[in-house]
């Protein structure tokens, strides 16, 4: 993992500096600037000297756990990310839970009743979920459920656990739509394949109840590809959370990343990308472990 992190941090460092826009001028936001102030800020931000030595200096501090201060928000980066991370995690977990809870049963039913109304209905939902951009779904959700019906709040994260849950329904559903689409399609095709295999016919011949056949035998075998697809989806959910958080005024890691990229807040961008790389690596590991749980044939020595 360490070589990956080094590589990622180096590439990110270079890429953000290639993008046009001087962080000092952007921090000073289009108002009058005094050259002495700009110069002091440049020194404080560590933007003096050639990019490579800047990178080495950053790396030296990063190894010791000091990821610097945000240029714009003037706070310790790790603390800032720590403040914002819980909300994003809640959002993504909720989205995954909703997605899995809806998509897998939907896929199973679709496979069981091929070419029925449910099958076509589910496919339509999948089509919409895949086609509609996340921010579009979020805005439509706000219009329908907040402005028009008044059932849900339009934005924000609320106070207290129950209120927070209520505020997160709209964003997590908007986020989950794409995953529901992919996961239900995957489940459907995997289930169809599983249902047409010999052992299922044998089970039916044995007279097992349909539900047992579906869940205990077919689904379990269909799950491997589904788990693969779904865990890859978490990556897309992270991307989607960036859009949803900005659209719906949620103060999570996603909106921090958008903000910091737009404002060339280099330390925050570096730290966030590093964090996401670690998260992805861990996620891959988790997925591999999950295979072992689902399929006894896959065991690690």
């Amino acid at each position, binding site marked *: 993992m360490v070589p990956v992190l080094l590589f990622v941090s180096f590439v990110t460092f270079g890429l953000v500096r290639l993008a046009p826009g001087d962080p000092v001028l952007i921090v000073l936001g289009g108002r009058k*600037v005094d050259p002495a*102030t700009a110069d002091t800020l440049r020194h404080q931000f560590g933007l003096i000297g050639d990019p490579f030595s800047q990178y080495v200096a950053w790396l030296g501090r990063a190894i010791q756990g000091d990821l610097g201060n945000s240029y714009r928000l*003037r706070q310790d980066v790790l603390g800032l990310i720590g*403040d914002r991370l819980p909300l994003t995690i809640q959002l993504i977990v909720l989205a995954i839970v909703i997605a899995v809870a809806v998509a897998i049963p939907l896929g199973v039913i679709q496979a069981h009743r091929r070419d029925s109304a449910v099958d076509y209905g589910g496919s339509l939902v999948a089509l*919409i979920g895949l086609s509609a951009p996340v921010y579009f779904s979020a805005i439509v959700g706000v219009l329908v459920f907040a*402005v028009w019906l008044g059932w849900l709040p339009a934005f924000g994260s609320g106070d207290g656990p129950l209120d927070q849950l209520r505020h997160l329904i709209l964003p997590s559903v908007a986020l989950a739509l794409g995953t529901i689409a992919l996961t239900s399609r995957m489940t459907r095709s995997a289930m169809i394949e599983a249902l047409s295999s010999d052992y299922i016919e044998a089970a039916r011949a044995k007279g097992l109840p349909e539900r047992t056949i579906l869940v205990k035998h077919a689904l379990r075998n269909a799950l491997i590809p589904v788990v693969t697809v779904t865990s890859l989806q978490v990556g897309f959910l992270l991307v989607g959370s960036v859009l949803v958080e900005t659209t719906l005024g949620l*103060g999570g890691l996603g909106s921090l990343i958008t903000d910091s990229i737009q404002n060339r807040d280099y330390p925050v961008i570096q730290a966030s990308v590093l964090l996401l790389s670690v998260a992805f690596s861990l996620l891959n590991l988790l997925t591999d472990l999950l295979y072992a749980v689902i399929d006894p044939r896959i065991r690690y020595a």
Partner: protein
Amino acid sequence: MNTLWLHRRLPITAVVLALLVSACGTSASPSPGSPGSDGTPKQGGSITIAIEGEPASMDPAFDYDFVSGIAVSSMTEGLLKFCENDTKLCPSLAESWTVSPDGKTYTLKIRQGVKFHDGTTMTVDDVVFSLNRIRDPDLASYVGWMLGHVSDVKSTDASTVVLTLDAPDALLEYALAATAAHVVSKKFVEANGDKYGTPEVGSIGTGPYKFVEWKSGDHQKLARFDDYWDTSAGPYLDEFTIKILPEPSTRVAGLQTGEIDWIINNIPSDQYATVKAISNVDLTFTDSYYGEWITFNTQAPPFDNVKARQAMNYAFNKKAVRELFYGADADPTKATLVNPTLWATLGDAAAWQAAWDELPSYDYDEAMARQLLDESGVKDQLQNKEIAYYESTPSIKGAAEAFIDAMGKLGVTIKARKVTYQESVALQFGEHNDYDIIVASWGSDFPDPSGNLRPNFASENSAAGGANVSNYHNAEVDRLLAEQNALTDKNERAKLLIEAQKIIAADSPIIVTAYPGWPLAVNKRLGGAFASSLWYWDSLFKEIYVK
């Protein structure tokens, strides 16, 4: 899958969705206020307002934008304040002030018995500490430049502070009403060091509202300070919450659901109609000192050719663009950034009016444009030049697109160079040599016409960090602008500024499209809501109450 099925089902679904989306015009109004509500303010209530981005800090030293000040100006206060719709300076934490005849000594009488939010009393030590802190180059305060001519700050007794300047500065008085002169608690700042102003610690001051919490990326919350020194009117609200909502349609949705009670400035012009249609919201406009304009790098050929610049000005139908975005009653523009609201703040109004009447407006005249362009002889060099603009503000985007169109009619192809807002800022305040044409906006920080002339047209400000986006260099204009800043007589200053303005207008380095106003959307359940031209320096919630 049976594709015919899909062909039949999909359009129906699309129509249903479209119907749902279009129904957003009707709003579910929240429960109305008490029946027969009168106009007398009463204590109590809490409101929620929306801003478009995360504030940088609660430390006044870093408040120099349109979002941080909402909280900062309710918590800390300056020595003076802008009053009477920003046409005058009034006492705030300084009860009175005098300026020496040579303009180099400012003596301020500091109000006694004023309490900070933590119960301690404000003293002249806090005032001296606050001013020196802003002047400290190591702090790198964004407003440090405002005190640039101040060479010394000291207290001469328990109620007097004296500022000594190295040269007279006509703008220093205004700085004393801005965040450069906000008085902070020495004890609190020293105790919190680097954490001062961050969400963890917040800020304390003498203002009508005090810090409750700041949840990073989400909201700030302030509560009424009951021991506020100015008991003339308010503060009335128990508390108010500042919600951070980057997406404009979400802010407007918040107005529609009633979750947001108050928004200033950050409503895009293409949403004015939607907001006006909300039954329980009032949308009003305050005159600003702002201009939106197109300009060129006037040091780079062919933009150094005055006839070419004038031709481009005549070619562009500013009125049509302006009315498209700001309505038929948008204020007309002339070839100056000093609009009537701004010149009303300095000196003899009659002199300014006479000057205004004489100024060219370069009204749309295609024939004149063609003629001037031919006379300039640089039409070929204009081909394929680029206009840099950001798309997130409809009027800016619209002006750029209309300009490309207008030049197309003259037979000149101008290319679009789309940039993000932040990149546009970097271009406008960078070296000023990395663009051909650019769409910009600017408004004076102070109620003084020099604020829209000196930063934008003095050649010293074309260096990196300055606002001379036109890269304009004119020795006579430089002389006039520098001289007026050292004078104290307002009529004398006005004369010099009018003279400079005249030269600039004839040179046509900028094409002024609009003088936009500040939109203010307020839920009808609130009373006392008012925003002046310099609202971002003002304490906006002192007199607001819930009916």
